[in-house]
């Protein structure tokens, strides 16, 4: 049985069916890429897996550690070891990154505000962050800033990966983590993700473009179009998409950025 399994998942948003029965199995140690054109249901998939309230599950199951996570509230999915790096990380004024990270780490450790022995110590917290932040080329000033407030696009995405690094999930979903990033940020983010790869982590990278897959090599690639998987394969499928785009399935400019570059 796979470690993480999506079975015939159907999801609707505002009464319209977006995911029309998708199935996917991810084992720890594997990196899967889900690729698709705009409007194919990529974000719906990532948000549904994490339990965002705007997405209504119409059918199917998502099995992880013997549980159907679709029946669990978001916080428990996270506790179970799931993590979602958002495409558009939310600005949360008034809460510092430091407070946010510490509370999340403590929640994972089962600290309920009472048994202080379960809470992370200041020293341990510093040490943990210092290491991860250097990989992501983030300086200490991030910690005293409000969550994502005034962060550049690249800083936001790096902050997402920092959260992943300190929370150590077993199943990570990276939703368009590469979008809007300059090439340096893509490198830092990819380095950090590659460092985390290993037998204890399954990764689902959701992306429109193949660029990030040059830095994080996927084991499997799945193409999502109109709420259904239309093709699956190995890393070579990404190269094929790089050349052909999604034109086989949808009418869109085959390679929008490349076409622009040609001019």
């Amino acid at each position, binding site marked *: 049985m796979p470690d993480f399994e999506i079975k015939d998942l159907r999801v609707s948003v505002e009464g319209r069916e977006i995911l029309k029965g998708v199935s996917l199995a991810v084992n720890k140690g594997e990196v899967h890429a889900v690729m698709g054109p705009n409007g194919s249901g990529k974000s719906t998939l990532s948000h549904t897996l*994490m*339990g*965002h*309230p705007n997405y209504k599950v119409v059918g199917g199951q998502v099995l992880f550690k013997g549980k159907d996570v679709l029946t669990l*509230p*978001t*916080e428990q*999915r*996270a*506790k179970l070891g799931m*993590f*979602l790096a*958002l495409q558009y*990380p*939310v600005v*949360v*004024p*008034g*809460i510092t990154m430091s*407070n*946010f990270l510490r*509370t*999340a780490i403590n*929640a*994972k450790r089962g600290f309920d*505000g009472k048994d202080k022995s379960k809470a992370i110590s200041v020293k341990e917290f510093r040490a943990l962050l210092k290491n991860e932040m250097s990989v992501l080329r983030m300086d200490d000033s991030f910690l005293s800033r*409000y*969550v994502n407030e005034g962060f550049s696009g690249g800083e936001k995405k790096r902050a997402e990966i920092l*959260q992943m690094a300190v*929370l150590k999930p077993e199943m990570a979903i990276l939703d368009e983590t590469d979008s809007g990033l300059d090439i340096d940020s893509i490198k830092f983010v990819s380095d950090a993700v590659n460092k985390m790869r290993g037998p204890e982590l399954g990764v689902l990278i959701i992306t429109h473009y193949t660029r990030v897959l040059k830095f994080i090599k996927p084991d499997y690639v799945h193409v999502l179009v109109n709420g259904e998987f239309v093709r699956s394969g190995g890393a070579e499928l990404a190269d094929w998409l790089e050349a052909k785009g999604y034109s086989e399935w949808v009418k869109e400019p085959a390679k929008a950025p490349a076409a622009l570059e040609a001019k």
Partner: protein
Amino acid sequence: MAFTKAAVEELSALHGEPEWLRARRLDAFGVFEGMSLPDTRRNEDWKQVDLKALNLEAYAAFQQPNGLAPAGTLENVGATLRQRGTSPAVASIAPDLARRGVILMPLAAAASAYPELVQRYLFSAVKPERDKFAALHAALFSGGSFLYVPDGVTVEQPLVSQFWSGGPGAAVLPHSLVVAGKGSRFQFVDQFLSSDRQEATLASGSSEVFLEEGAEVGYVALQHWSVKTWQFANQRFHLGRDARLRMVDVALGAHLARLRVEAILEGPGSSADMKGLFFGTGEQAFDFRTLQDHVGPHTTSDLLFKGALRDQAKSVYVGVVRVEAAARGSSSNQANRNLLLSEKAKATSEPILEILNNDILRCSHGATVGPVDPEHLFYLESRGIPHPVAERMLVQGFLGEVLDRIPVPLVRDAVEQELAARIE
């Protein structure tokens, strides 16, 4: 009737006040007698205020002296004034401040000790004719403080006044008079507290603050009356040339807490930063009326009132930005943000702009009313933070922006604890 001329005379005698002040009180009492309660249907300034359950007859004119302020000391403050009801005050001031001419004393005592100063400023900003409650306050004010910082004096540590009501059934009307000399710099914390969380009183912690040329003043008013208190308070700030005001209002108590806050930017180049913080529970109602009055040229004001409401609590915010004819090159911002933590909590917000000079740099306003942002909740919960913790963090974060502006850590911590208890 509880409020009589004899009561005014009795109170004035109790405080041993000079004749001029007794005469002023009696004049104000005449105004009070000549006015009726505000018409909450026709009077624009009182619309949305529910006075039906208010019975003025139920209150004694003032509290008899009945005990001293609770014991306790604040650290790292320049001076404190602690009072309870009409009892004598406990005051302490750093010797070095006293030597430099800084005065912090009960207002009634100041009327005798510094008659010229007090006579010149008292009720020149908040006039008794304003409404029946302002007239009552001017006739029967009792307790409160007089703070004077001479020209050019900088006070590093905050100055603190703490006033406790002395028990139920009476009018509790402390008044603060603050005069900031030219180029003076200081922070003043003005606390209005109930000795008993359930006592029924009619209260107003009102203040008049005068900033002379180049003065830089921080003013924090903390209102924490009992939940059975009716409060009708006025704060008015007059700013001279290049004066800078940074003020924070914290409203936690009262059944109905009405507060009028007015910054009059008369001096060219003066600026006012105005923050408000409130948290309503149960059936509390808040009513804020703010005025940013740009009289002089190149004046700046920035206002942010933020609050959270749960249970059936309500708030009304009406904010006027006025740019007068001479106020060219002025800049103004006004924002009111309301967080609703229950289905029955309710907030309304109304900005009013009166622009008489179009040669202004900026005039912006915004209001929001709504629950905790579900996207924020999702984000925190997706990191494994349990729902109640996430909600508490978000409310604290929302209020933190204003909370962090309270300069005395002990006071800030007390407010933070009270807020935390209300969030639970």
